[in-house]
């Protein structure tokens, strides 16, 4: 029951973001757009801001970091952080 509730909540969130996924789920090489306000100042400074295009370049071994290209630079972020970044594959509708 609790599990279902969680699932429903998750879907509700996705729906709100217009079928967005998290960066952790994105596939290698496909450009995506960040769809929400990232709050972490360091991430923001690295270019993780709403509307920016981001492409995954490599996935680390042993559950290692995700290396993405953003604003013409490479940034590596761990998967837990990547889970908190919502993206859209075909651009944001907002």
């Amino acid at each position: 029951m609790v599990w279902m509730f969680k699932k429903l909540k998750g879907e509700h969130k996705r729906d709100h973001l217009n079928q967005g996924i998290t960066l952790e789920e994105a596939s290698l090489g496909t450009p995506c757009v960040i769809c929400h306000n990232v709050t972490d100042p360091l991430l923001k400074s690295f270019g993780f801001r709403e509307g920016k295009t981001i492409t995954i370049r490599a996935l680390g071994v042993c559950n290692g970091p995700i290396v993405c290209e953003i604003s013409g630079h490479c940034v590596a972020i761990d998967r837990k952080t990547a889970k908190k970044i919502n993206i859209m594959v075909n651009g944001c509708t907002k």
Partner: protein
Amino acid sequence: MSKQTILLIGPPNVGKSVIFNYLTGKNSDCANYVGTTVEYTVGDIMVGGQEYQLIDVPGTYTLEATNEAEQIAVDLLYGRGSISHSNGCHSKQQSKTEVNVAQVPKAIIVVLDAQNLERSLFLLNQIQAHQIPVIALLNRIDLLEKKGESIDVNKLMDKIKIPVIPSVAVEKEGLERVKEQLRTTVEQEPLGHDCLGGGKITEEEAWHRVEKITSEIKSKRESSVQQKETLGDKMIKPWPGIPLCLLILGLVFAFVVGVGMGLRQYILLPLFREILIPALVFIAEQIIPEGLFLQVLIGEYGLLVKGLEWPFTLVFPYVISFYIAFTIMEDSGYLPRLAVLLDGIFNKMGLPGSSIIPFLLGYGCGVPAIMASRSLSSYKERLIVTSLISLAIPCVAQSGALIFLLGERSLFVLVAVFAISLLVLVGAGMLLAKFIPGAFPSTIVEIPDLLPPKKDIIFRKVFIRMKEYIVDGAVPMMKIIAIASVVYETGVMNYISSFMRPLVTQWLQLPVEASTPLLLGVFRRELTVVPMIEMDLTLVQLFTGAVISLFYVPCIAIVATITREFNWKVALGILVVTILTAFLIGGIVARFGNMFVNVML
């Protein structure tokens, strides 16, 4: 009265150290990885006939104080800094200059990264809120131009209304203009507005304005996606990154050993053994009468014999070859790639991949390595890295001695010793990660471009590190050899050795003279190895000795560094653990090494 200060602020890896060195004429350490400057560095600078102190602030992306480096930057801006700084270069015995950081700085040089203009401008805007006169240096424009992009500097100045000097720090381009501009800037009152047009704006709005300015002055938008895969990209992918990593580290090892051996065999050994030492011994014999003093100088552990031979022909060659290799990896931008590649694996030891940098440095010397661990984000990570460096990573001096001790007798035992060190490193890391409380490491790092290292920068850095080795390594080593020589010649050594006899002869199955290196090893790591060269040991005894020396107490300088960086309890804990581990594994090798060596040979 203390001098007024000028701050040099910018994001990590933008070229601040190079600029600082130019402006102050000093030799501070600079490198192509994040976290080179953890302490801040201070140097004098003349501006318009008056002397100021220039402070190289640790690299910071924002002023949110999310880590230690950013906190230092914020404190310095408010004039409430503390005085933990280094003077010139990273070395454990820096001469301290007086600096008053409890005053608001007179001016700030903000180094903007031409390749990352948006966030540089955002940082500039945050700095300007402090109402201190500012000049901006737009550095690394050469790299931007290489990508076929450009920035309209006049338009930028027009928009942000402060002087902007385009520069290529490594070519010294634009740096003379900074000195000229500073003359007017230190006289100025603060502008009273920030670079984004003033007004109280939200952070979102600030980012928005920064993006707008950038798009107006840059020939190409920062968000343009690069399609071509470069060698730098390949290095961070598991394939072919991991084979490349093994190949590169293998080459580095071969280079360090090969070049080190060559330098020793063909240059340093003939120079010292055939020319310098005989000449000094001859002179000593002529002018000093027979007796204890002469024996201390030219006897078994004579200061003029072993005191020169060990530090300069055994260790120095490997110091040179190690630092050439390390500096090339450091300056090319390979280290951050290695860090990202190994991140997932290091996480299993509770560490972020970036701890590879202190680890690799540890193979040079533990002191700068432990200091470099400050760039790690948590206490837990620092403690694990420091413990592992103290326990299982031999410094270059010790490796040099081990290679010499074992290389000629059995290459196999040499490899076995290093393999045991790696095994213990990983095992101890996993154990520590379980038992030391603390959060799991998180990774958010930028990977700098892969750049061909610059010859003159490599030369300069290797030279600084060689100088550091002579001052902080070779000279203390000579002093200890001198003490050993006195203790040996007066018979005190024999007396102390008798206490250690049961441990050495029964548990470790070594000859009784082997207690000498164990005593000396407290002071310097390689001294646990070097005296064994002169003894007549069996292969298993060599193996035992090498393993003990590997895990035995880190040298006195490392213990002092741990006490300074943590506290005496941590230092004592690490001492006890290393001694116990050394004797435990040493005893095991002494018993089972025979089997092992026989099977393998």
